[in-house]
């Protein structure tokens, strides 16, 4: 049956993006050829090839690190902090001016809905530059002693789920604190980083302050392993994070890791149910669930389980799926064939282990990589879908009877990135949040981000914080350290 009120297609125009057939590396202020075998980047919603992108070899990475070192010692390090701030403000304004271009390109390359890239990714990326621009000349007030100093060259490796936003989380604090960077975007989503390189040129950022070296895992390894890198920052899977920690151990490099998660979203029986259901949807289906802090474990009080699940299923049926460039799309494409295979495999395991799989009626597009929003009920804490990070639109529903049981189950994970609590009772929220071992805890909301708020994990979710005053520490040496 078709609905009475069918929305006509409302496509954001692609024409604002000037997509080139091939892209080089951005080193020392210029685009140059890479010496590795180029990669192709796809539109995951159609499997159409968007562009060919250079792969940085060890030699290319070496050139980039040298450029960053030169810029650090000659220009960016000695520069008056207020002037560094001016560059960051300029970059922030350019991101806002070119917001639509960035949003369209992000949706093309990543598969996420334009509503999210337009209303979340790009504005937050600009906000991170604005926020850190303000810090540039106030670092003595960051609580790190009288005259904190930059570390030098930062090697940064970022994931494909929020390509531009993760770039901002990495580059903005590094630059504000006087460091220079070599950044490696994810293999499947390099395009907005390369557009950002154009913004650096447009802002007249001195050459070498920002270098962007595209490529796959090998290129990332070269960035991390380069002996002249002083600081490594990585966001991505726990597995890769562990191998980076091993590679960096004993080198004297500073390291921050932001890794996986399996967040508990705890719904008490006195929660505002309608808003909690919205929060559950936002927690797990935002960005197709490709979110390290996704609320992938719903812990719902047994007395309201049936009501919450029924309400959630009804709500999921109303999600709009399809062309990421349609302004009314809620769920876009899975980023890659590889990720789709992983989501499928873990979901099959969930079913095999005895959990009940539920998916809404309706069809998915036939081309591209798609996965239906999925809810598993009858999930036990021993099931793999309750323990492993799926990184897709798959929710596991568990129940609890008492607040203590909720806390015990929430903390029963090898991760500790984020958590959510839903209750109308303020005292309960305060009591529970203090017992949750997670870096970010949301109360009566989920997946809200702000540059002033430090973000990072416990346990296998990594270490170090990004954002806020605390995030600056990762890029500064105090007088005593």
């Amino acid at each position: 049956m078709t609905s009475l009120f069918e929305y006509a297609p409302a496509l954001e125009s692609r024409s604002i993006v000037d997509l080139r057939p091939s892209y080089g590396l951005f080193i020392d202020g210029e685009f140059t050829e890479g010496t590795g075998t180029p990669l192709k980047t796809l539109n995951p919603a159609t499997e159409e090839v968007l562009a060919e992108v250079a792969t940085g070899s060890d030699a290319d990475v070496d050139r980039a690190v040298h450029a960053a070192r030169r810029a650090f010692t000659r220009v960016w390090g000695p520069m008056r902090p207020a002037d560094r701030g001016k560059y960051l403000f300029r970059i922030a304004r350019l991101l806002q001016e070119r917001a639509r271009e960035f949003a369209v390109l992000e949706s093309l390359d990543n598969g996420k809905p334009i509503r999210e890239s337009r209303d979340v990714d790009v504005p937050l990326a600009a906000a991170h530059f604005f926020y850190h621009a303000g810090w540039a000349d106030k670092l003595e007030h960051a609580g790190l002693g009288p005259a904190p100093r930059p570390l030098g060259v930062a090697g940064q490796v970022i994931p494909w789920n929020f390509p531009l936003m993760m770039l901002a989380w990495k580059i903005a604090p590094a630059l504000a604190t006087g460091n220079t960077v070599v950044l490696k975007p994810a293999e499947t989503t390099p395009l907005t980083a390369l557009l950002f390189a154009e913004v650096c040129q447009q802002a007249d950022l001195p050459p070498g302050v920002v270098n962007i070296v595209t490529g796959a895992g090998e290129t990332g390894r070269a960035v991390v392993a380069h002996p002249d890198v002083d600081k490594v920052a990585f966001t991505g899977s726990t597995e890769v994070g562990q191998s980076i920690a091993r590679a960096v151990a004993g080198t004297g490099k500073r390291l921050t890791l932001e890794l996986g998660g399996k967040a508990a979203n705890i719904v008490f029986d006195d929660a505002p149910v309608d808003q909690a259901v919205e929060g559950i949807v936002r927690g797990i289906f935002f960005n197709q669930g490709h979110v390290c802090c996704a609320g992938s474990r719903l812990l719902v009080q047994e007395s309201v389980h049936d009501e919450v699940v029924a309400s959630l299923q009804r709500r999921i049926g109303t999600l709009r799926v399809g062309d990421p460039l349609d302004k009314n799309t809620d769920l876009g494409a899975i980023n890659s064939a590889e990720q789709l295979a992983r989501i499928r495999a873990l979901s099959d395991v969930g079913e095999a282990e005895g959990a009940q799989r539920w998916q809404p009626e309706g069809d998915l597009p036939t081309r591209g990589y798609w996965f239906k929003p999925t809810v598993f009920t009858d999930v036990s804490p021993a099931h793999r879908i309750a323990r492993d990070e799926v990184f897709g639109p798959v929710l596991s529903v568990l129940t609890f009877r008492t607040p203590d049981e909720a806390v015990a189950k929430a903390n029963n994970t090898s991760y500790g990135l984020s958590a959510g609590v839903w209750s109308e009772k303020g005292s309960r929220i305060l009591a529970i949040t203090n017992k949750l071992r997670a870096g970010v805890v949301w109360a009566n909301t989920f997946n809200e981000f702000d540059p002033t708020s430090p973000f990072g994990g416990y346990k296998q979710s990594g270490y170090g914080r990004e954002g806020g005053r605390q995030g600056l520490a990762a890029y500064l040496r105090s007088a005593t350290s």
Partner: protein
Amino acid sequence: MPGMTHVLDPDALSREGRPLPEPLEPFSDVTRSDAAFRAFLHGLPGVDQVGAEARTNVLGTRSIKTTAKAWAIDTAISMVDLTTLEGSDTPGKVRSLAAKARRPDPEDLTCPSVAAVCVYGDLAGVAKEALAGTGIHTAAVATAFPSGRASRAVKLADVRDAVAGGADEIDMVIDRGAFLAGRYLDVFEEIVAVKEACRRPGGQGRAHLKVILETGELVTLDNVRRASWLAMLAGGNFIKTSTGKISPAATLPVCLVMLKAVRDFRTATGHQVGVKPAGGIRTTKDAVKHLVMINETVGADWLSPDWFRFGASSLLNDLLLQRQKLRTGHYSGPDHVSVD
């Protein structure tokens, strides 16, 4: 292209079955005492203001174009309760409004007529006569509208008077003073009494009862949800946000909470109640946002003038201008729609 963006399950919101003709009464015991009624209303799940606003903000970004926009505009026009509630109202003014209600755009016969004309009770007869044979309803405000500050006897007389004058629909106000003082049962009993007073002389059924909550005076969304349930339990056919005389009048979060209340009420009782936001909805964009909200929260069952109305006056002209723009490709001006 990966195919047109589509809602996953168009039936997700309507799978709960059709409304029953008569209200079931699983909640008949909750009004047995003030204490029981209070416990029931305060036991309804809370509403988080921030979350409700976030939801309406996202729904507000829906982009409604071309054919969808044309459908939405015509549907919105058919849902308008074209309203005049001024001290200066005259029979002439009401007749002119009735003419507009019947044929909102005299230059385009395909334009639908509105749902009702809403006037003060003493002018209900004039409206009824002017609308005879059109199918357009006459709605009359009553119960010492807008403040509701009069004795119950006076309020009931007001209602009977309007019904006798030919009103098809009565828009009553609740006693906000009693509600805010926690005398919920008083408010409930008054609605029940008004509903009884809606009975037409000669046993020809009852005028439809719309219950105005005046949400601008109830202030919190928790109060809006409680008042919605109270009014539905008392037998209101519609719950309506505002008189239009208090600011803020209809807002999207308030309407969202009321929509969820009617949805939950139908799930619990099988009885469907309509919703009418009134006051403050002036533009086509506002109206479309409301239709989107219905579509995505309670579903198509409420997408008809039987179950959803806009209490408005200036809204209609903006809908007509946008309708002309869609048809001709250019904007005309205020002189191309009739003054009220």
